[in-house]
């Protein structure tokens, strides 16, 4: 590798290089002002209420004008606008994460209002389906795993509440980066617990996902093709190096001192293992350069102080902790990358390509397709106070979004001009969730009773956390007593077996009974009644944002839906309710669900196992069972051609053409509607998003 000159001011230098990409803080671009003038009265409203429909449509129009200018400049032609039929399916898949049900499909077609598209966009953005869909998005980005250390289900729940309550993005990031506590106190604490024991990896990922900057190379050596040096990496890591993710609670420590035997201490450790993962901070901890550090600007093992890689310095001290300073610096509108990364990430979500790519690896020579448009989007993101829902609302209302598929093949090297939509196979979650929507009524409110499968049982964590040391010790003692008694009987059984492999059956049975009769203690018998009645929640203080979110989540309990209507559909939950991620043989994984080991690791690659699953998989039985929503709807109408239309409207969200009617007629005549369902499931039109 060529030795790079070690300039101490590379950070500032990089920031200068970036200057061109920094979004301007001015209120409105000239193009937008011109438009607002043309819109006249409507514009007045837009000015006063930054999140009104008028403002939304004005912003969408502005984006379309930017796009039109790009096309004119590059002599490109855009595709036509889509019809209602394509719009309906596309918008459901994009916002709700699934296809619409028969009822939803018919409601849209029956609506004659001229602004029914905008209305549908709003309805979907405010639905629980949006929560489910966006959870998948964030879970892929933040690698949320049910089985991670410290209870991933609570982390997942926190993210769902962020989406449900539409917590501003900058607040969300701030909460994550400064998080502390147990996940059941503060789900955001999962952000550090996810990378327990890997603070450097955690920093690389944080900078990648929130600042679109890849510094992972600099973790071990100077970045070969970018500005970042290993020294700078350590300076950045120093901000959050004070994180601790392992924890020994005081009550456990004290209880342990009250116990004598190793057996009892083991029992205590086993019982309280779930309290061992908690995010806490030793704020002033510096970080040392690695022992194999090989550059001249510093010595191996030398301690490093926090210093940011670009933008302003994050000042700490005077009551501001390092992580708070770091989080403020990161989420500030004046951070040169924070805003444009989220603006581009959301653009990428809606248009399936970024305005600059790769979206997580900005370099000095990164050129957005249109700088003015990127600036404008960044400006809107700030103006909307990082309101993701409002931002998406604008993008979905653009003409650019509502265009037909670009039919031409795209060379991956050629910049994509967004002249039309990108044809793509549904994501694994979209396919699965669409199947769910065909099978059960009200698919977005089927909530899992109890958390997805995990390695440890977290059901008593709050009791354990608040027990007095002597209560814990008494509990551990009893638990140990039971275990030892069981082990003694086990040894007897083993000896009997050894003495005579086949005989001694009755004696062994008797012993087994004895063993089963030994009762293991119940934690509730050891908690004093006064306390268990209403225990104050730790000394942990919720921040304002968390409090607000908790309140809002409580208010938004349209999640309180009668679950009895789902009887008989045990496994039909939306992907967001299942284990994150599912096991390797689950249909979600076969279709490319991310393993959530690394950032955004989902794929839409076709493979033969998927085809076989669609041909012969068991899910087909659920979809076509008598109880399935779709088949019940088929039953409700008597005319065979109407039955066919119910299937087409439920699966493709359009009516069958006369040609198609003719094709399915022989099947309908035989009352074989299952074959029709099978055929549609195996159409590419079904699994692709147009």
């Amino acid at each position, binding site marked *: 590798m060529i030795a790079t000159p070690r300039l101490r001011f590379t950070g500032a230098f990089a920031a200068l290089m970036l200057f061109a990409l920094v979004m301007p803080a001015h209120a409105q671009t000239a193009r937008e002002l011109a438009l607002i003038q043309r819109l006249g009265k409507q514009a007045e409203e837009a000015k006063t209420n930054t999140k009104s429909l008028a403002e939304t449509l004005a912003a969408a129009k502005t984006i379309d004008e930017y796009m039109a200018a790009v096309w004119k400049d590059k002599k490109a032609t855009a595709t036509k606008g889509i019809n209602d039929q394509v719009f309906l399916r596309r918008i459901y898949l994009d916002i709700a994460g699934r296809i619409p049900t028969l009822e939803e499909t018919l409601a849209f077609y029956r609506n004659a209002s001229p602004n029914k598209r905008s209305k549908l966009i709003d309805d979907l953005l405010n639905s629980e389906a949006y929560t489910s869909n966006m959870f998948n998005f964030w879970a892929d980005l933040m690698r949320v795993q049910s089985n991670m250390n410290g209870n991933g289900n609570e982390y997942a729940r926190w993210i769902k509440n962020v989406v449900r309550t539409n917590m501003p993005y900058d607040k969300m990031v701030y909460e994550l980066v400064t998080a502390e506590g147990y996940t059941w106190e503060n789900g955001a604490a999962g952000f550090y617990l996810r990378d327990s024991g890997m603070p450097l990896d955690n920093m690389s990922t944080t900078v990648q996902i929130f600042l679109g900057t890849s510094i992972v190379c600099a973790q071990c050596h100077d970045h070969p093709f970018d500005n970042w040096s290993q020294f700078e990496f350590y300076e950045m890591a120093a901000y959050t190096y004070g994180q601790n993710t392992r924890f020994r609670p005081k009550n456990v420590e004290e209880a342990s001192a009250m116990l004598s035997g190793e057996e009892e201490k083991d029992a205590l450790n086993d019982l309280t293992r779930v309290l061992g993962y908690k995010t806490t901070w030793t704020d002033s901890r510096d970080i040392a350069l690695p022992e194999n550090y090989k550059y001249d600007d510093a010595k191996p093992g030398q301690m490093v102080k926090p210093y940011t890689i670009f933008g302003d310095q994050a000042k700490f001290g005077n009551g501001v902790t390092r992580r708070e300073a770091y989080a403020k610096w990161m989420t500030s509108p004046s951070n040169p990358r924070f805003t444009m990364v989220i603006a581009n990430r959301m653009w990428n979500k809606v248009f399936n390509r970024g305005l600059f790519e790769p979206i997580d690896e900005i370099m000095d020579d990164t050129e957005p397709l249109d700088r003015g448009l990127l600036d404008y989007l960044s400006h809107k993101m700030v103006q909307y106070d990082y309101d993701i829902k409002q931002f998406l609302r604008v993008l979905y209302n653009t003409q650019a979004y509502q265009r037909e598929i670009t039919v031409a093949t795209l060379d991956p090297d050629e910049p994509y001009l967004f002249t039309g939509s990108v044809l793509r196979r549904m994501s694994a979650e979209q396919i699965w969730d669409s199947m769910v929507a065909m099978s059960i009524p009200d698919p977005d409110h089927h909530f899992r009773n109890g958390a997805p499968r995990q390695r440890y049982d977290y059901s008593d964590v709050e009791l354990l956390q608040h027990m007095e040391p002597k209560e814990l010790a008494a509990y551990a003692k009893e638990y140990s007593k039971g275990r030892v008694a069981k082990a003694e009987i086990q040894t007897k059984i083993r000896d009997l077996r050894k003495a005579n492999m086949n005989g001694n059956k009755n004696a062994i049975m008797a012993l087994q009974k004895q063993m089963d009769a030994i009762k293991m203690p119940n934690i509730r018998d050891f908690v004093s009644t006064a306390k268990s009645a209403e225990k104050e929640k730790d000394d942990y203080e919720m921040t304002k944002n968390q409090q607000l979110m908790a309140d809002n989540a409580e208010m938004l309990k349209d999640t309180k839906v009668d679950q009895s209507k789902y009887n008989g559909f045990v496994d039909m939950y939306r992907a967001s309710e299942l284990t994150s991620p599912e096991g390797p043989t689950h249909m979600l994984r076969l279709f490319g669900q991310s393993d959530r080991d690394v950032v955004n690791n989902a794929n*839409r690659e076709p493979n033969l196992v998927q085809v076989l699953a669609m041909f012969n998989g068991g899910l087909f039985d659920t979809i076509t069972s008598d109880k399935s929503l779709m088949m019940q709807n088929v039953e409700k109408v008597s005319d065979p051609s109407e039955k066919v239309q119910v299937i087409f409207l439920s699966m493709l969200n359009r009516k069958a053409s006369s040609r198609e009617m003719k094709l399915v007629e022989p099947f309908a005549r035989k009352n074989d509607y299952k074959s029709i369902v099978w055929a549609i499931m195996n159409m590419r039109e079904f699994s692709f998003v147009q």
Partner: protein
Amino acid sequence: MKDQLKKLDGPSRRDFMVGAAGAAFGVSVLPSLMEQQLFAATGGKAKRCIWLYMSGGMTHLDTFDLKPGASTQGPTEAQKTNGAPINKLFGDFGKYMKHVVPINSLTTTTGDHGGANYLMHTAYPQRGTIKHPGMGCWLLYLTGWEMGQKNMLPGNVLIGGGSGQATSGWMDIKYAPLPIGNPAGGLPNSKPRVSKEQFDDRLQLASDLDAEFRVKYKNKKDVHAYTGLYQDAIRLMNSKELEVFDIFKEKEEVQMQYGKNGFGQGLLLARRLLENDVKFVEVDLGGWDNHAGVFDSMETRLPAMGASLAGLFKDLEEKNMIDDTLVVLTTEFGRTPRINGGQGRDHHPAAFSGFVAGGGVRGGQAYGKSDSQGYRVAENPVLPADFNATVAYALGLPQKVVKAPNGRPFQVGFHGKPITEIF
């Protein structure tokens, strides 16, 4: 990164877990000559590999690293074999220890399941920023394996895995193992749920209904890819090769020999796959996380496991596959020599055991030693990377540096050193 992958890999994009357009035309991308050169370069004899993964952290003291007389041994008893001693409960497996080299000096510092599992499977420490491929992927990648060279079967299969690394890491997805949850179930979803006639009618209907869409997007690669995959799927469903996945095609006595339990059936399926040019099969056996009741657990699991292993080695001998089939067994870490209050053992990464066997390995002796109580490595420490490098060595895979699509350098077995003395 995905785009870069696409660029690198243009022509082979549509080769997935099973099936390839190439198969129809008999195209072989890398001739087997190259395979031979690779093997000649390092002298590895093994052409294929069964990787047995003991998920949860297998106790070393109660399996392959026995300490008769030590206070940490508990009620476990050793048996003499024609090779290294093993737990008496393994039964007939002792008769085949002449093929086996237990490694009793495995060591790592990673004590959590996920991290240690990842490390053992990939030789690299787990990162939040990249995913590393496992041995099966490396084997296919470095030998230039392509779908359809020999038949329609995948090159890499993972049986019973919930814990295995079921991805191809940064490598092309075609190298990813095909996951099979239940070895007795055959290839998942390969049997039509209706009669052949009805199936064909349905397929015809799907094709007719979809005609407009196909024409409209005829130049879209993904749409086109599915067309090919449909053909492959139908071909596979009707092919003889599908039977390879059906362990019930074996004689009853062979099924009995392997044992009618998940692990035994996994081994039997692995052998059937390897016989048919599948290169790498991992079989996972869970339930080793014995924080409590470790000895009871051994009593129930080892006799069955020993019988299945004996069945496998007997079969490999009889089929003359023992010399070019490498069988390895490994796990994420060992378990504490100290027996805890629940009669269990806890996580112990400092010293643990695995084995390598067959495939040119000089069996009948153990490699490496832990101390008298089984706490620390006393002789010849073997890191997970060394273990991987040893497997690579046996398979004749060169530890040359290759670049991932993002430009970062990687090699099979990381910087591990192979144990060459046991070959």
